[in-house]
């Protein structure tokens, strides 16, 4: 097979995010922090979240090691969740997971913005965990609290 089928997975925007991830680093004043690992490959993702007074996400940052897909997905996730409430984020996380495992005719772009370019992961089942790691992390940080900081 020509490698052109790979273009569905490694879209230009994904490569750009992976090479120059947005919101990479950490947040000294974070309200929530979480570290998630992908035990099958040893990848680690650290996520820090800062909330504003109304409980919306004011800022978010991630660091760690991972493949192109996991890094790009984390970068896109951080772009999309800023300004959202925890309930909105939960809905996005669910939609993201649905998009790459059991896609319906929902308008994913409306919910997920640019992160819809990751839909090609659906054809690469071995890579689904790479794509969902960052979304799981933000979900857990918000819902289960991560580590609360004073």
């Amino acid at each position: 097979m020509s490698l052109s089928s790979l273009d569905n997975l490694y879209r230009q925007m994904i490569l750009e995010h992976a090479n120059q991830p947005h919101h990479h680093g950490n947040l000294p004043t974070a309200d929530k922090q979480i570290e998630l690992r992908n035990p099958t490959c040893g990848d680690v993702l650290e996520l820090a979240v800062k909330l504003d007074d109304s409980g919306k996400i004011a800022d978010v940052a991630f660091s760690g090691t991972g493949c192109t897909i996991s890094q790009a997905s984390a970068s896109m996730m951080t772009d999309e969740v800023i300004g959202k409430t925890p309930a909105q984020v939960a809905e996005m996380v669910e939609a993201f997971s649905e998009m790459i495992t059991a896609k319906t005719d929902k308008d994913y772009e409306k919910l997920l913005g640019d992160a819809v370019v990751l839909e090609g992961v659906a054809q690469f089942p071995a890579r689904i965990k790479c794509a969902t790691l960052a979304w799981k992390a933000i979900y857990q940080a918000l819902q289960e609290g991560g580590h609360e900081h004073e």
Partner: protein
Amino acid sequence: MVKKISELRADFPILDQTVNGEPLVYLDNAASSQKPKQVIQKLVDYYEHDNANVHRGVHTLSQRATQAYEATRDKVKRLINAPSEREVVYTKGTTEAINWIARGYAQKILKPGDEIVLSYAEHHSNIVPWQQVCEQTGAKLVYLDLNKRGQVELADAKQKIGQKTKLVSLAQVSNVLGALNPIKEIAELAHANQAIMVVDGAQSVPHMPVDVQALDIDFLAFSGHKMLGPTGTGILWGKRELLELMSPLDFGGEMIDFVELDHSTFKEVPWKFEGGTQNIAGVIGLGEAIDYLLSIGLDQIQAHEQALMADVLPKLQQIEGFELYGSPDPKDHLGIISFNLAGLHPHDTATVLDMEGVAVRAGHHCAQPMMRKLGVPATARASFYLYNTQEDADKLVDALQKTREFFK
């Protein structure tokens, strides 16, 4: 009948397929090997003609099943030059074998302050069982360093193996670097300190002649599925007197002599370890796999893989950004090459290779301490076996070049 390596590919039906539109190049043999049709047919024959429980019946099928099941012990004995087939215990695999040694033997003899010596290159299944034993007994783990060739270094071992050492457990061949350890010398050192030598043979027994008497080791563990046999099979070999001391962990049917209301007596070694209905078909299939390997000769298999390494490693090293882990000398790679392409995560590499039909493993290879030593979260790993050809090796090189191009 001695088969030429070039002729045996036809014995492996699974290799004759395309993956993502490309001919399959299977280079994940360190994880699990493929099975020749002789082994597959043996399973079919067993289920079609002889299937019955073993050691439990006067009827003809039970007799046949028992005879075939027991016959594998003798084949294992020949494979590893064990003094007796009575020292051959069936397990699910290397993991179960090491756990049994740890819990059934080591846990009984270890005291607080005693030391177990491992290396940084061990598979998790040769680390975690010992950690558990240490928690139970107060013994401690000591790790041997690796030299530039990826082997444990005798000088370091001399420092670390001493009076406190009660047990040394090492992989003969590392599943990450593919390097061969000086087991005979380490065993001598262990014995000079009255310690027991355990060898994880998961990556050596399938690929080279292993002689437990020449190495003078005390226990050997290996997996059937990595040597052409069915999944769920493995071997624990141990010196008779140690197996006598070792306690069974699966109590119940099969392994007993007499059961009273408040106590029981157990069968002799090796049957006392094999509680409950065993993987009878699997063990019989493993026997067939051993026949197959012995008909070719483990020395032939090793020479074949060595020739592939000598050819492919220099070609790989010419690929731009190819980062090799372990020794640059092909002789130090028993069919296993771990690597990364600079700037690329091994998951991405493995996905591109898969699109080219080339199956490699990407990840930590169940050796996280080794990954930390190498300073990487993960590597890609190509691992070869007797049916891999020069064309397979060239396809790997070609596909890696395409990977470079793709991510340019």
